Each structure stands twice: as structure tokens, then as C-alpha cells.
């Protein structure tokens, strides 16, 4: 920062004026564009072309999924969805890098210029201690409601994951529901209870194994598809739970990843560990 105070102030004014102009131009051109777009809710939209037609008319023979959206995102356009779960993975890693607290390195004094003074550490710790009792306190209403609600939430989430190819939902939405069940349970009964089965190690293993299966399964199907080989994966009878080839497995993997990710986001943001 080589600018001095006055320079900086002038600089910010220029920045603001330029930004305001940019926003105005953006608003004008976007709203103008919107009038130019094809009309809403009408059947002669350019999107209604051969692409959408094949997804619906051949979807069941080709993917075996009754839910056309699931068939589309996990089979036709699977590379996008693969990228999308990697976005989630990358974000989890970055949040872990930021918030995962390390153990003090066994008394060895390290010296760096970027560390805070010990004072800062102490004040931060006390601040967290002040908040923490709010979670662990004995709230009868919360606990009773949670006791009844959590099983239903979890079962509903699992249902949504397993029926991803048959009904609305799928790995992402079902995983989010299961994750919210985990979060409710940790809020009501404290993090220790959740830690018994979902700690850093198990969450890591679940994420790793699910993504690995996802990656390998999709690699197999991309490879066979591109080389015009038969994939040899049976599609089953459309409408059954055990049908539509890889989609069910992928949904389960995605669901597990999303559930662990949602819970670990909450846990990391809340107290700095999983």
C-alpha cells in the first residue's frame, strides 16, 4: 500500500463513481435484454429443441431413470455434475484449511512473523467459551422436539436419496436433509454425541470413499462411452428402486458427501473442528 491517506480517499471516490456507472450500464442493458428474450412460459422457447426432446422421449430407455432431471444430470451431462461435486470438495478443503484448529505443536516454540500474540489467542478462546454454553445447555423443549424429529428427518433424507431416480430429489437434496438432521442433533445434544460416529476421521473416510467410487464409476462410463464399448451395466426395470444403472450408486455417494459436508461446514464454522 504505497498510497497515503488522501490519495486513497480520492481513489475510493473514483472507484465508487466508476462502479456506480458500471452498475447503471449493467442494469440498463440487462433490463433491455430481458424484453428481447423469448416470452415467458411459452412453448416456442429456443430451449424446447431436440436436446430436451431426447432427454424426455428416450430418457427411460437410455438411462433407466423415471426422474428425467436425475437422468440428465447423472448420465447425459455427468461431467458437469462431477465437476460440481468437486466444487463442494474444494470448498470443504478450503474451509478446513481456514478453520480447522491445530493442536499446539507439543510445546516446541515456533517463531514466525505472521502469528498473533498470545494475548489475541487468549481473548479469542474466552470469547468462544462465552458462546459455547448456549449450545450445551439443557434445553428441554429443544431436546424433546429433536428426539422426535431427528429420526423422521433422517429417514426422509435417506428416502429422498434412494428415490432420487424415481421422484423429486436426489443426492444433493437428500444429503442436505440428512446433514440438517445431523446439525439439529448436534445443537440439541452437544457435539460430543455426534462425534461418536461422525468425527474428523470418519467424515474424511466417508467423503474420500464416496468421491473415489464416484470418480471411478464415472471414469469407467466416460471411457466406455467414448470408445464406443458396451458398459455392461444393467438398467433394470424403470420404476424399481434397483434400476437405472449407476444413478442409484452415484446418488448414494453424492448424498453421503453432501451430508458430511453440510455437517462439517456447520461444525467448522461453529467451533473449528469436525
Amino acid at each position, binding site marked *: 500500500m504505497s498510497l497515503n491517506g488522501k490519495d486513497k480517499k480520492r481513489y475510493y471516490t473514483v472507484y465508487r463513481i466508476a462502479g456506480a456507472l458500471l452498475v447503471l450500464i449493467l442494469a440498463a442493458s440487462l433490463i433491455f435484454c430481458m424484453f428481447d428474450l423469448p416470452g415467458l*412460459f411459452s412453448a416456442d422457447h429456443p*430451449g424446447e429443441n431436440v436436446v430436451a426432446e431426447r432427454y424426455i422421449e428416450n430418457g427411460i430407455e437410455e438411462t433407466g431413470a423415471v426422474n428425467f432431471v436425475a437422468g440428465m444430470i447423472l448420465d447425459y451431462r455427468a461431467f458437469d455434475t462431477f465437476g460440481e461435486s468437486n466444487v463442494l470438495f474444494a470448498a470443504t478443503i478450503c474451509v478446513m484449511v481456514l478453520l480447522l484448529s491445530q493442536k499446539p505443536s507439543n510445546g516446541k516454540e515456533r517463531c*514466525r512473523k505472521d502469528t498473533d500474540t498470545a494475548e489475541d489467542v487468549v481473548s479469542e478462546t474466552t470469547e468462544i467459551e462465552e458462546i459455547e454454553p448456549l449450545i450445551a445447555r439443557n434445553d428441554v423443549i429443544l431436546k424433546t422436539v429433536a428426539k422426535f424429529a431427528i429420526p423422521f428427518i433422517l429417514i426422509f433424507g435417506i428416502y429422498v436419496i434412494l428415490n432420487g431416480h424415481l*421422484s423429486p430429489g436426489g443426492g444433493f437434496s437428500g444429503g442436505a436433509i440428512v446433514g440438517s438432521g445431523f446439525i439439529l442433533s448436534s445443537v440439541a445434544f452437544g457435539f460430543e454425541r455426534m462425534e461418536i460416529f461422525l468425527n474428523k476421521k470418519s467424515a474424511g473416510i466417508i467423503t474420500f470413499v464416496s468421491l473415489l467410487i464416484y470418480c471411478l464409476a464415472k471414469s469407467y462410463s466416460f471411457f466406455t462411452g467414448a470408445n464406443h464399448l458396451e458398459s455392461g451395466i444393467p438398467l433394470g426395470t424403470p420404476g424399481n428402486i434397483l434400476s437405472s444403472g449407476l444413478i442409484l450408486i452415484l446418488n448414494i455417494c453424492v448424498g453421503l458427501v453432501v451430508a458430511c459436508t453440510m455437517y462439517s461446514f456447520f461444525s467448522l464454522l461453529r467451533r473449528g473442528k469436525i
Partner: protein
Amino acid sequence: MFEQIYDHFNDIIAAILFVIGFSNLLFQKNLIKKIIGLNIMDVAIFLLLASQGYISGRLAPILTDGSENAATYINPIPSGLVLTGIVVSVSVTALMLSMTIRLYRKYKTLDLDEILMKVSEESKVEDSSDTIVKISDDKDGQEREGVK
């Protein structure tokens, strides 16, 4: 005129929301408000996408009554794109929030300008006293073990 507005109602709302979110992301000083702006922006895009796919009188793209006619269902592509967009938006929001938490812990403020000012002051201090080496157990106040 009104006819046209009625015809493009969702699109226009989406454009307005997008601009609101965009200007919040650019001009708000408060980091949390910036993140809210980001989310408004994303939601605007999802609204635009979803309304591009919807056609009145058609069903959700899930096989109903065995009909495999494309004219029965709405376009499934925008729905899939919105799903992807939502996941990206969730990841980015979590990342931004966690950075905000770290910055708040260190600089005790959510104002980005103030944070940047403190940061540049910090560099200046370090600059003038090159030899000062701070000693501490841990980095950036991450020691939060032993709570409870």
C-alpha cells in the same frame, strides 16, 4: 407496454435482483452484507434459469401416467443447471463465511475497508522494525482446544 412487462415479468425481476445483488457485492463494506449480496445475485440467476424452462400447463419432468411425449413436461435442462448453480453457490458462501470468521477473529471488525487498513498498518509496522520476531505457540489464534 404492460403486455410486454407481463410477458417478461420473471426475467425483469431477475434482472433487478441481479443488479441489487451485484451492487451489494461491490459497494457494501460489511463482509456479511457482501455475502448476502452474492446470494441475492445467485438467486436472481436461478430465477432467470428456472423461468426459462417453465412452460405453462406442463408437468414436472418426472414420468407421469407413462407419457413419454416431450410436450407433456417442462424442459429438464434448466432444472439441472439450477441444481449445479445452487451447489456452487453453497460452497462459495461457506468459504466466504469462514474467511469472514477468521478475519473477524483477528481484526475484530467486519468492515472490509477497516480490515484492509489494519492490514496495511500491520505491514508498515513490520517494515519499520524488521527484526521484531513474535513468538507464540500457535498461529492466528487457532487455539480453541479445551473448550467446555
